[in-house]
Each structure stands twice: as C-alpha cells, then as structure tokens.
C-alpha cells in the first residue's frame, strides 16, 4: 500500500448502529436502579477517586450505554468502593452494585 506521508483520520463519532444492546440490557437486569439515572453528576462530584484521578463514574456509565468500552476496564480499577456516590444519588441508583457488575461484565467478555 502506498505511503503519501499521512494517515487518513478515523471517524470519532459514535456509530450507534454498531452497539450491542444486549450488553446494556444484561447490566440493567442485574442493577435495575441503573435505569433511573439522569446523569446529574452528583456521584462524580462526591467521588473520592475523582478528586485525584480521571475516574468519572457518570462519564463511564454514559460510555457504557453506547457500548464504548475502550479503556474502561483500567478506569474501573480506580474505584475504591467507598460508597459515597450511592449515598448522594437523588434517583436512588445503587452505584456500588453497578460498579461491581460493570467490572465483572468487562472481565467476562474479554
């Protein structure tokens, strides 16, 4: 293949036709309260890990919804399971359970 001195950029837009809806559905069945999330960000605001690192649970769950899992497994290791997020959530999402299940799902479907 020819090399003209540059690479053609890859599209960065999320193609939702590529997502596997079953993955999200399986997670929602395990953690039903996850459906109530409105992405208000209270969890990330209080999160212990986010204060010192990039771990953003609100962002992670948004990515997971679109089946964008690149780099997620590594990020998920940063959660200390302290439970502050679950305490403050206005919609009553069981975040600790969610985090544990996302970790498991990412590990299983390698």
């Amino acid at each position: 293949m020819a090399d003209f001195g540059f690479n053609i950029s890859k599209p960065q837009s999320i193609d939702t036709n590529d997502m596997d809806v079953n993955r999200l559905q399986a997670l929602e069945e395990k953690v039903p309260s996850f459906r109530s999330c409105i992405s208000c960000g209270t969890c990330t605001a209080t999160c212990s890990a986010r204060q010192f690192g990039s771990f953003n649970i609100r962002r992670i769950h948004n990515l997971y919804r679109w089946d964008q899992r690149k780099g997620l497994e590594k990020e998920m290791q940063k959660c200390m399971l302290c439970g502050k997020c679950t305490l403050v959530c206005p919609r009553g999402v069981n975040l600790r359970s969610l985090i544990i299940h996302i970790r498991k799902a990412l590990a299983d479907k390698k």
Partner: protein
Amino acid sequence: MFKPLEMKEKEKASRSDESPKPREIKRRLKAVKKIRRKKRLEPEEVELPLQVAIIGGGAAGMEAASVLAAHRCPVSLFEARSELAVNVKNKYKIFPDFSDAGQLVQTMVKALDHPLITVHKDTEIVEIIQEPDAYILLDNKGVSHTVPAVLLASGYEPFDAKRKEELGFGIYDGVINSLQLETMLKEHKVVNSLGEEPKRVVFLQCVGSRDEKVGNHYCSKICCVTAVKQAIEVKRQQPDTEVYVFYMDLRLWGQGYEELYRQSQEEYNVHFVRGRISEAASTFDGRIQVKAEDTLLGQPLKMTTDLLVLMIGMEASPGTRKLGKACGLEGPYGFVRSKSVHLEDNLSEQEGFFLAGSCKRPMHIAEAVNDGRSAALEIIKFLRR
C-alpha cells in the same frame, strides 16, 4: 387600533339579529341594577339582558361559556372552524394521568347545551369595533353583534415543522410530528415509512421553540412531558421498539410529570440523550439517519431510526395574531398581552375586553380551562358593577 365607526353605514350594511344599539346597552344594564335593588335580589338571580361574545371555541372558551351561563349571563360562542376544540380533539390521552381527550371534549361540549349559550360554528370574527360601553363584532357571514363584553380565547396553532428544513419534515416519510404520532397512537398503528412496526423511534424536543432561527425564543412548556407520555404510549403498544428521546433540557414542572419521567425510564426503558439533533437524512434502506452530540460525553454520534418524531411547539394562531394586532393588544411572538400577568391576567388594556387561554402564551389544557373560568368570573364582576 379599533376601526372608527360610521354608525349609520355600518348599521345599514349588516344588521340581522336583534342585538341592541350600543347606547341601549348602558341603559339596559342600569335598568337591571335598578330592578334588582328594588326587588332586593342577589345579582345572580337576575338574568342579564345582554349577550357576551366569546371568540374561540377551545378549552378556555367553552369553559368560560358554561360558567357565564351558570351565572345567568347569555353567551354567544364564535368558532371559526367547523368543530369545537380541535386542538384538544387531536390528542389521544392527556398527561399526566392518561385521561381520554375525546371524553374531555365530550364533557365540555355537553355543558354547552344550555339555553343561554348559542354556539356559532364556521363563524370567524373579522372585525371588532370599539364603542363606549360596547363592542361591535363583525363576522365573516356579514352579521354584526353588539355586546357589552368580549372574551378573546382564540388559542394557538402547532408549529409547522416544515420550517426546520434540516429535519426533513415533509420531505422524508420517516419524519413525523407529535400530532401525527398522537393519531397513530389513537389508531394503535405506530408505523415507519414502509408501514411496518418500527424497530426504533427517536423523539426530538424543542422543535420550533427555544430556537432563534425560527424566531421563537420561548419554551412551549408542554412538549417535554408530552414526549415522555408518548414514549410510554409507544412502549405500551410496542414493547419491543427501542425509544430514544433527544433533549436540551427536560422541563417536567407539573404534578406527576417527574414521576412520569422516572416511570418511563424504570418501567419502560426509554433512553434519554442530552443533545439536540442537527440534521436528519434518508438512508439507503428508507430509514432516517440523525446526527447529535451526547453532550454529557462530549462526543458526536449518529443513529439510524425508523421514525423521527418532532415535538412541535405552540405558536399564536392566525386568529390570535390578527385580532391581537387589530385590537392593539399584540404581545411578543404574536400572542396577546394581558393587563398584568399577576393579578389582572384575564383583563386587557381595553375595558370590557377580556382574554383567556393559549392566545396569551403556551399553556396546557387544565390551565386553559382554569383561565376560561376565571375570565368568566371577571366578566360577571364587570357586568354587574
């Protein structure tokens, strides 16, 4: 401004009913007061000898009519179209409790069956002339009506989504507006452009509202909860269809609305995406491709859907615009301006000219009904002063 009156000419031109001359009105009202005082009757015990005109046979107008009649005040209700309450009739179920719109209309129309109420359908008021103590209304059939008080309840019309060219309404078959979806839901036939059950339905909020490009900066107030309601209805009728709602903000201010939102997520698995759709294009297989940004992630996305439902806003109706302008009561965006939104929301700057309903601003049915009722009470207060 009101047109100046050439009394004799106008009278010669088109007088058909027995409406009294303007001078008469003041005299008759005074006479009624005298009789009442003499016979020591309560105001409501004496029927007013004059008709009040209500322009607009929608939720507000109909409620005002029945309240006025209950207070022994004769009413003439003018509706430009052939049917009453078209803007309620074209709905299926009403939020937040899914009451049936058709039944609601039936109840309101039944209340109009009263000896003191005269309903004039297919009658559009084309001119209003202000006189001391009276208004003369000219309708499209050439008949004039002289009344002591007028209630303008000419309502709204839904935004024409064709004005948002980039969304493909009127161009691509898979793009419909929320009213068309109501009809589909009523008929239990939510289908895509090929007539099949859609695998996915996408709702887009704020079409024609909060949009500088169409000149409507305001929020139409009821579209957010309508989308949530319709999303639930789609899922109830077709549980396998995926439903996405694309929004800028979710404004669920009413009682039961936030709970409806929560229910739509928990029970019906409706997905909400914060990001406005910029364009809709047709795909090779007749579906619709939309582009939006998931603003919470900061990433653009594209989605292919079978049906794109545009949540259209409320704009002032042509009648509201015309009459509002003619009477010097034009407010922002063509709606009519009340005297003060706090304590005098049913009054206008013209004495004896009252306002009710969505001709003033976007409002939902319950609010329009309440507004019609309160306008009626203002009118009675005015007439029995």
